[in-house]
């Protein structure tokens, strides 16, 4: 197993999928070079018929992917920055996400819409969106957002093979991650979460670039005698409610960390969805760690202010523990024990 970077892992999966299935084609701006490296160099192996550099016309190549898929291709559309989904939103939300349903199930649309997502260091308000909750709400789109090179590769293979439009969001803050990854292609099923760290006292669900600081916080909390279970959903649609609910049923405590705005965000959804399922197990109010409801600012200290960091996670975990030890009815507290 070679050590590969986050984007390289996706590149490997894409390249292997192109070998395996010649209907896989790449569409997007500058995809021969590719700003993020996911498509870089593929043109040398697969040629310009399958690696299609497009003009700057997001609506048309994103919508073109729908027609191309309906007519027999498996397009990988490189939308570049996820802020640009908005430029092609009709084609995503009114077309790609609707055509199968409106047709009564006649059409399969095996499309991957790939974009780098989230703040990447002072890229400012039009290049730093994390629009996953918007895409989750759309219905008709699968949405994945990995946090490790291993997951990135396995999810990419699954996304390309999936017969539905899959939004694949590569958190740009993870670009420097590097890890050992099997050379051969493998699939991580869409909809399967992963326990990144096993723990007993508190469940922390973390998305994408918040997985590393949450793991960091968990390691530090261990030293304080607090055992944190860290779950990465990896795929937001479908969502692995079972795994998350099972964890909270054990721990009784939930913190969700999502690098995105709060209002109608994924963090609130995860809290609402888990609460519905395991209300009686909750020993304290679930906490969410998100950005405030503002656009992403340019200046480094301002951008940083939005961030959720390991300290925030630790504080939230302690708060949840405090609250539950203070407030739970004696009977329940005794039964569960709390740190």
């Amino acid at each position, binding site marked *: 197993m070679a050590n590969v970077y986050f984007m390289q892992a996706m590149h490997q999966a894409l390249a292997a999928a192109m070998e395996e299935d010649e209907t896989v084609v790449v569409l997007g701006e500058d995809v021969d070079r590719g700003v993020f490296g996911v498509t870089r160099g593929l043109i040398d192996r697969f040629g310009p018929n399958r690696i299609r550099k497009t003009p700057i016309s997001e609506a048309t190549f994103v919508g073109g992917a729908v027609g191309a898929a309906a007519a027999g291709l498996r397009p990988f559309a490189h939308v570049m920055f996820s802020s640009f989904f908005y430029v092609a939103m009709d084609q995503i939300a009114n*077309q790609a996400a609707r055509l199968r349903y409106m047709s009564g*199930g006649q059409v399969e649309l095996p499309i991957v819409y790939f974009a780098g997502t989230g703040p990447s260091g002072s890229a400012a308000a039009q290049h730093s969106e994390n629009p996953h909750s918007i895409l989750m709400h759309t219905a008709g789109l699968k949405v994945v957002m990995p946090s490790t090179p291993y997951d990135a590769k396995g999810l990419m293979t699954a996304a390309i093979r999936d017969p539905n439009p899959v939004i694949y969001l590569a958190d740009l803050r993870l670009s420097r991650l590097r890890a050992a990854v099997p050379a051969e292609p493998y699939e991580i099923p869409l909809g399967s979460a992963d326990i990144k760290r096993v723990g007993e006292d508190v469940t922390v669900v973390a998305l994408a670039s918040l997985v590393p600081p949450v793991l960091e916080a968990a390691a530090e909390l261990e030293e304080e005698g607090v055992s944190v279970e860290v779950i990465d959903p990896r795929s937001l649609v479908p969502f692995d409610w079972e795994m998350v609910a099972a964890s909270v049923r054990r721990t009784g405590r939930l913190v969700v960390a999502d690098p995105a705005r709060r209002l109608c965000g994924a963090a609130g959804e995860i809290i609402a969805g888990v609460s519905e399922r395991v209300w009686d197990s909750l020993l304290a109010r679930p906490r969410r760690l998100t950005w405030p409801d503002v656009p992403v600012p340019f200046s480094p200290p301002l951008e940083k202010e939005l961030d959720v960091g390991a300290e925030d996670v630790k504080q939230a975990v302690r708060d949840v523990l405090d609250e539950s030890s203070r407030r739970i009815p004696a009977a329940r507290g005794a039964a569960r024990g709390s740190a």
Partner: protein
Amino acid sequence: MLSDALLHLYRLMMRIRVFEEKVQELHKLGRLPGFVHVYLGEEAVAVGACSVLRRTDHITSTHRGHGHCIAKGADVAPMMAELFGKADGYCKGKGGSMHIIDTSLGILGANGIVGGGIPMAAGAGLADTVLGRDGVTVCFFGDGAANQGVLLEALNLSAIWKLPVVYLCESNHYMEFTPTADLTAGRIYRRAEPFGIPGVEVDGNDVLEVRRAAAEAVDRARRGEGPTLIEAVTYRFAGHSEGEEAFVSAYRTEEEVESWKARDPVTCFRERLLAELPDRASELDDIDDAEQASVEAAVRFAEAAPFPPPGQALEHVFAEAGA
């Protein structure tokens, strides 16, 4: 052209005519849910264009899509059932008038978003190109849709990639309740020129003229020489959508409508056939009767069909992997 082929064109135009008149009638009776936009008066465009397509070729359509679907070979019975929202409709009642789809006929869908089909058509053309097939896609869109930016994008993309796509603008003079000319600079077919794409204007009420222009464009596309923009000038006899009188005051003069009815594409073509093929006159009557009967049968089919079970609302969001 062989006379059989001519009669077939007539048959399809009459099928659309009869279908749409029946739709109007049913809408007035309150039998059809949702929005309904009929194609009366524009029959020659869809029929002329689709007459040069193969079953494996694709079309993308619009909110005013019944005529395109029929011309591409759709069966009126599941179409009608779809308009009723029935389980035996093309889309199992999920789509309705604005979303009729039959992928087995290459119909990639009527579309409720004005301009929504334009990028899809380019994409279908790309699939043919990449896979080395000699298929062609006809992209129907309205004169109002010609002001959506995706037209520029798709023309550019199709030109540089020489995509086998025919962009067919149905210039029926109106976008909803507004004369297109009021809000549209210049002539639409000329929008092709800057991209080096042939842009041609045809009489959209003359099925043979449409067919001729479409044939040239389709052949060119099949030969790998790229896209064409055709502007078919025509007129819709009915309102923008059925029932609009309830909330919109008149926006066209009687005279204008009548002047176009005098150039009715169906009756004009019928007269021409009568003149040119006098020995087959009775067949025209047979066609009229047969189409009338088949649309009546379609209505019975639609009426008899069950509504989908409510729980089906939850199905068909995602395809199963490996299914």
